[in-house]
């Protein structure tokens, strides 16, 4: 295992222990993830997608907002090209996540990057970043987190296909609120100085404004890039190695700020 967090001789954790840690840490999202998968499947079936196509969306696209966009647009008779372009724009934020998370991976990863990329989501990016900042991250943690979400979302899709409208409306009690709460819990410990707070406020406020005009994935991309660029501008002149805190270039093992 390539463990960049152990510069000297910290005890090696086993790959499986890290995988399990990532898998279990991500289970806190299941109460939001499972109803989402079920609701998506019901929506897709209602929109004229076959059971196979519905499951294929979760297995092959595996991006909740994009999947909902696809079935909504297709159901209204949109052509394929505009739908695919919409999906592209919704998912461009993944480029940002991939670049960001790549700063932690060194050398060969297990499994290879091509597989890790397949299960990249907002949630796995967030939780893995947090784990790395706490000195507990690894490719195994990322893989465990990704598999936790991928398998639960796909099983929920299957349940939605099989049981359909027999299930109560999962959105009625607002379980999806667990997603913003999770990112809130991930954000708070990263706010270590006024620049971080300023960047967070700029991103948060601009996201609220943007969300009235564009879809969620675009909101995150535009607000995220703009606010991070402002942060980088404030940090100009600093040498690269001096960027500590949220980037933790020179990472040392330290106590977790928030346990996963």
């Amino acid at each position, binding site marked *: 295992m390539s463990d960049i967090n152990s510069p000297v001789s910290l005890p090696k954790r086993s790959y499986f222990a890290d995988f399990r840690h990532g898998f279990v840490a991500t289970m806190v999202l299941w109460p939001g993830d499972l109803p989402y998968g079920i609701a998506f499947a019901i929506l897709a079936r209602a929109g004229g997608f076959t059971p196979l196509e519905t499951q294929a969306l979760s297995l092959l696209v595996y991006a909740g907002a994009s999947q909902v966009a696809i079935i909504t647009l297709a159901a209204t*008779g949109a052509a394929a090209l505009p739908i695919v372009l919409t999906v592209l724009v919704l998912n461009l934020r993944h480029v940002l996540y991939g670049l960001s998370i790549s700063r932690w991976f060194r050398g060969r990863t297990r499994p290879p990057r091509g597989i890790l990329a397949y299960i990249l989501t907002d949630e796995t990016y967030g939780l893995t970043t947090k784990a790395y900042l706490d000195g507990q991250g690894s490719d195994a943690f990322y893989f465990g987190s990704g598999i936790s979400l991928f398998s639960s979302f796909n099983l929920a899709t299957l349940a939605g296909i099989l049981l359909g409208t027999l299930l109560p409306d999962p959105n009625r009690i607002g379980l999806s*609120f667990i997603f913003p709460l999770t990112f809130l819990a991930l954000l708070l410990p990263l706010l270590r100085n006024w620049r971080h707070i300023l960047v967070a406020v700029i991103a948060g406020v601009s996201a609220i404004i943007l969300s009235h005009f564009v879809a969620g994935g675009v909101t995150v991309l535009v607000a995220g890039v703009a606010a991070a660029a402002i942060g980088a501008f404030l940090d100009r002149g600093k040498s690269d190695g001096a960027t500590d805190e949220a*980037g933790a270039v020179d990472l040392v093992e330290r106590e977790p700020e928030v346990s996963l």
Partner: protein
Amino acid sequence: MSQIGTGGYMGLILAAAVVTYGTRISGFLLGQRKLPAWLNRFLTYVPVAVFAALITPDLNVGGHDMWPRIIGAAVATVVVLRFRQLWAGLIAGMVGFWLAGALLGM
């Protein structure tokens, strides 16, 4: 690509899958190169910026359940800062959200 007929969504799904995977793998591939210092500084702030942008639209500002959401988020903030446990923050936040919704009749 042509107009989609009824029942023939598999081609569309495959195209969407390829495009989505393209966005996922490209950051991983670009990130393997040595990045310029300005890009590294930028990436330092990406988690803070992205997490904040993922939270605030879901507070539904101006919407019918804005206050239960804000109260839930406030409760979660206090609990996370006090107990430093993700799960405790989530449970407290959800309970705060539900209770506020019930009390405010939303």
